[in-house]
C-alpha cells in the first residue's frame, strides 16, 4: 500500500525546516523543535500549546544535535513500501539534552549499539524522498 505523507498545519515549521535548501538549491534541511517563548520548555512532537505553562507562543529552534541512545528496535520486515527491501534497519530512540526525544534510523553500522552511546542527528533524504532526521555515531 502507498502512504500519503501527512504534514499538519500545526507542524508546518518542522516540515519546512527539514525541507530547507541552500543558496545553490542543494538540500540543507534542519531539524527544528518547539521551545516555549513564555517558559523556555522544549517540546516534541509539535503541538499548539505548551503543557507546562499553556502558552501558544513558540519558537522553532535547532537542538544541540548530539544525544544519547535510550532504546531501539531493529526492523526485520517492514510493511512500508519505501522500506521494504531495506531491512534490517535500526530505529533509535534518542535522549536530547533539551529534554525531548527523537526517533530516527541509525545510518551507520549498528556494531557497538548500547544505551547511552552518543549519536549525532543529521537531516537526510529518507526512502520516501522526504528529508528526515537520522543518526550517526557521534
Amino acid at each position, binding site marked *: 500500500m502507498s502512504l500519503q505523507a501527512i504534514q499538519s498545519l500545526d507542524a508546518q515549521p518542522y516540515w519546512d525546516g527539514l525541507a530547507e535548501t541552500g543558496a545553490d538549491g542543494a538540500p540543507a534541511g534542519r531539524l527544528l523543535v518547539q521551545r516555549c517563548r513564555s517558559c523556555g520548555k522544549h517540546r516534541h512532537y509539535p503541538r499548539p500549546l505548551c503543557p507546562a505553562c499553556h502558552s501558544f507562543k513558540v519558537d522553532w529552534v535547532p537542538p544541540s544535535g548530539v544525544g544519547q541512545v535510550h*532504546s531501539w*528496535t531493529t526492523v526485520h520486515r517492514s510493511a512500508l513500501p519505501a522500506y521494504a527491501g531495506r531491512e534490517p534497519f535500526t530505529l533509535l530512540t534518542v535522549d536530547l539534552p533539551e529534554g525531548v526525544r527523537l526517533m530516527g*534510523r541509525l545510518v551507520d553500522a549498528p556494531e557497538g549499539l548500547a544505551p547511552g552511546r552518543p549519536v549525532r542527528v543529521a537531516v537526510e533524504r529518507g526512502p520516501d524522498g522526504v528529508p528526515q532526521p537520522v543518526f550517526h555515531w557521534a
Partner: protein
Amino acid sequence: MSRLSSGSAASPLRGVAAITGVGETAYGRGPAERSSLALQLEAALAAVRDAGVDPRDIDGVIPSAAGTCIAEDLVENFGIRDLRFSATVPMGGASPVAALQTAQAVIAAGICRHVLLVLGRDGRAGNIGSRLRQTPQFRVVAEFETPLGAFAPVELYAPMARRHMLTYGTTSEDLAHIAVAMRHHASTHPNAVMRKPITVADHQASRMIAEPFRLLDCSLESHGAAAVLVSARDAARDGAKPPVPLLACAEGHPDSPSSITQRPDLTRLGLAKCAQRAFDLAGVGRADIDVAAIYDCFTWVVLCQLEDLGFCAKGEGGAFVRDGALQVGGRLPTNTHGGLLSQAHMAGMNHIVELTRQLRGEAANQVAGARVGLVTGYGDMGDGALAILGHA
C-alpha cells in the same frame, strides 16, 4: 462468605452492575465468509440470549469505535424500541474493558438497564498498520514516525520492551514463557485458532519481526466477533445465568499518550495509573485474584502489565512469568482461552467473555473455585483499563 476485609471504603458503584451475558462467534484466520456486521450481530445476539434478555429491551450500546457495527445497526437488526444511550470508546485494545466502566456509570446513573458491548472484524480490512493509521489516536505516529520507518504496532512497541530489557535485565526467554502459557491454554480450548503446543525453544527459534519481538511474541490477525451484556443489579436477577458482578472498573492514560518515544518512562503503561484505584474501589487485593485475563497483543505487554498491576515489583515481571506461573495450576492463571496470542485477536472483548465464563464456572480450562478475577485492556500507545469482577 467473603474472604475479604469488610472495612475498606469500597465504591458505591461496586456491584451496581453485572455481566449477565457473553457471546462469541467461531474464530478463524484470514478473510471471513461473512461481513463484519453479520459476525458482530451473531455475537451480540448470543450474548443477549445468554442473559435471557429480549434483544428489543437493550437500552444502551457501546459498539467498537471501528464503526463496522454502529448503534443504528443494533437498533435496526434487534428491533430495539427505546435506545437511551450509545457511545464508542476510542482506546484501541483498552476499549472493551474501558467500556465496562462506561456501562457501569450509565447503569449507576439510572439511564440504562442493559448495555451491550460488541466488537468484531472480518479479516478483510488490510494490514494492521494501515488500519490504525486511519485512527486519530495514531495521528502523531502517522505524521512523524511512520516516515522514519515505524508503522506497525510491533515496531512502535518494541522500544518499550528493549528499554525494559536494558533497565531490568529482562530476556527474550522470559517473554517465551508468556507465549508458551497462552498456547498451552489454547491447545485445550475449542474456540482457539492456534492450538498446536509450543515450547520455549520454539519461541526462541521463531524469526525476528522487530527486535526484541519474534514472531511468537506477536498476536494473531483473525476474524470473528465477541459481545458482552452489562445489566443493572436488579435487572440481572432473573437472568438465565448467574450474574458476574463488576466490583470495580477503571481506565488509565499514560504520560505522552500519543507518542511512546516521548514518554518519560517507557516501561510504565496507562494501567499503572488506574490499577491501585481499581483494587481500592473493589475492596480486594492481589492475593484475592483467582484468575486473570491480561491484554496480550505482544508478550512483553503482559509482563509489563503484571508489574503495573502490582503482582510483582517493576522489573521483576521476567521472573514472575516463569515456571508455569500463568498456566492453570500456576500462581496466576492468565488468559485461559489462549488470549490474543493464541485464541484470536478480538481486541480483548474475548478476554471479558473468558473471565465471565471462569467466574461462572463454565470455562473450557476452568480454574477450580474461581471467585474473583480481573481483566485488563491495553491500547494504542499504552492506554490501559482494568475491571475486577466476581463474588467477594
